[in-house]
């Protein structure tokens, strides 16, 4: 449910009139430290891709009704249970009630990833691959199959699709790719572009 770009049915953006800066509650700060700093040291795979995927595996209704840090609580608890640090029963007993966890990983483990690529340059026309990976990816659905132009090369970074599902790490070129809103949505939005940052593997020459 995390892949929200272009999904319809969402209402107005509601801004809290005097939203406090920083954390709204102590547990948010504690959750940040636990999920992003402490817990990863004790996980078989504590890299960003695996952490993010634990959020993405949440039940979609729970995802939408949870605040940002509430999602992190679910993801941290899920990873702690999956790696044997805790049990769900312990969590539910301590919380005094149901403690929903994310669903299981359904993507297969990647044992022998291909090397990272760096095929494109500024100005190249590219098409986003029309794929739908089961595991973690940073390629949003709303641009899949669409054509854009590379406008910036941002250097190599760890490919999230591998990072989340492998002991290996593949560094690969990333780009900023410009799409005309009208190419994406086909409803006449002159002068509007949507610029998306993408790994090389998500693209093919157009």
């Amino acid at each position, binding site marked *: 449910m*995390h*892949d*929200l*770009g*272009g*999904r319809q049915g*969402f209402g*107005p*953006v*509601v801004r*809290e009139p005097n*939203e406090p800066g*920083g*954390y709204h509650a102590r*547990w948010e*700060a*504690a*959750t*940040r*430290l636990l999920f992003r700093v*402490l*817990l990863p040291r*004790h996980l078989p795979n504590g890299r960003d891709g695996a952490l993010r995927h634990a*959020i993405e595996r949440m039940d979609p*209704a*729970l995802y*939408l009704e949870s*605040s*940002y*840090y*509430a999602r992190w*609580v679910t993801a941290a*608890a899920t990873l*702690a249970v999956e790696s044997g*640090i*805790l049990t769900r029963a312990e969590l539910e007993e*301590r*919380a*005094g009630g*149901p*403690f*929903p966890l994310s669903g299981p990983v359904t993507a297969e483990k990647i044992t022998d990833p291909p090397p990272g690529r760096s095929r494109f340059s500024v100005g190249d026309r590219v098409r986003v691959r029309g794929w739908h990976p089961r595991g973690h990816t*940073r*390629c949003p659905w709303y641009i899949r199959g669409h054509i854009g132009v590379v406008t910036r090369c*941002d*250097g190599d*970074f760890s490919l999230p699709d591998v990072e989340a599902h492998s002991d290996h790490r593949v560094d690969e070129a*990333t780009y*900023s790719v410009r799409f005309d*809103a009208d190419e*994406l*949505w086909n409803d006449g*939005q002159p*002068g*509007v*572009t*949507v*610029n998306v*940052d*993408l790994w090389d593997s998500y693209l093919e020459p157009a």
Partner: protein
Amino acid sequence: MSDAHAHDDHHPTAPSSIERRAAALEDLLTEKGLVPEGFIDEVNRMSEHDIGPMNGAKIVARAWADPEYRARLLEHGTAAAAELGISGPEGDFVVVANEPGVHNVVVCTLCSCYPWSILGQPPTWYKEAPYRARMVREPRVLLKEMGCDVPGDVDIRVWDSSAEVRYLVVPERPAGTEGLSEEELAGIVTRDSMIGVARL
């Protein structure tokens, strides 16, 4: 009925409150020995201290005041931030500038990527579904709804921070600010204008 969900089939029992779940997780991880000494102090420090968008405002003010800095900032954001003693995000820090014919706005449709070291915590609405779903779909409509009326002849560039780059928008310098010092200029730069959902 004390359980708001029991009737709708899907949730035979609603989750415990998020406060109780967060506390349970913290307590158990502490008991299992994963939480080092100093954790509570660090949490308290984080809870009480928020950098806010001040660093971003400083960067914008300098860019307004110094055309050469502005050029370096747009060319290489991370290095230009470092000139002011501000560390950038882990990945690259890219600065995009509004101009008379161009308005920029930042979103992260997949989660809530945001230049934390420059702007502090993202506001709640930035992390929620309506903003993430709609800003790439109908930016002109949504910006107007949010009180940011971008003239029809101004192009809109939406930046979806889906990889390692984090974005900062340099808003246009308002008219009538010629006499202001750099510090005074920083005082008029709002967080929303650096996300791109407001114009100054």
